């Protein structure tokens, strides 16, 4: 009985380790393109994009590089 419990625990630990090893962050941007259309010169405009963490690990946003 003790042996069976030990084996069960080992299996659980192994499976948990495997899940952690494959856990990966994932960024999803559902609307990643926005068209402002006609815009006057010499003006400042803005738009908000929503970013979602859809992986199975914490997502770290390191920086946003202007393009």
């Amino acid at each position: 009985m003790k042996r069976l419990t030990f084996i069960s625990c080992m299996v659980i630990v192994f499976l948990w380790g495997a899940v952690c090893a494959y856990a990966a962050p994932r960024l999803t941007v559902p609307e990643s393109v926005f068209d402002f259309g006609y815009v006057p010169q010499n003006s400042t405009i803005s738009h908000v994009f929503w970013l979602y963490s859809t992986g199975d690990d914490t997502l770290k946003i390191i920086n946003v590089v202007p393009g």
Partner: protein
Amino acid sequence: MLAVGDSTRLEIIFSTRRYKGQISKRPKIKTNEGPPDKFVQISSMVTQRPDSTYPIIIEPYKLDLSQFGEKVVKEKKFTIKNVSDQNLKVSLVSMPDGLFDFKLPKTIKPGKKSEGELKLIKEAYGDTFEKSVTIEVTDAKEEATRFTIPVKRTIHVAKASPDTTVNSKGKGSQ
């Protein structure tokens, strides 16, 4: 840091400066997800003549809610002129949250003008900002054209200068 299932907003601010014509920008978002990096993309048609666009002309083409003094500038009206020969449907595409309410006409007949209005909400009376509102007009053939109206608010309140104060007896200092 975004926990699994969480979301956040990313505001992209674009200054059109002296750009002309079709301009696209593609900021890169670097995360711990690893390569390839993700992008968002904005595109615009920067025009030197916002007073002669087609199929509508927005007047004024920029809305300034700037305040000079204590009196709050709460609203701005603007007109949209349909310069095409078709009935146009007008709709709101995008505007910032929690700053103002925006009223648009639903349709504009060919050659006619209609009025729109932007009203600052009470919670934003103390705010300064540079944002924008994007609208879309659609013709009978379902062809859509977008226009973005920049909206700016600054607050300039004059501070009382010590030189201008008068003593309680109404006499100046000697």
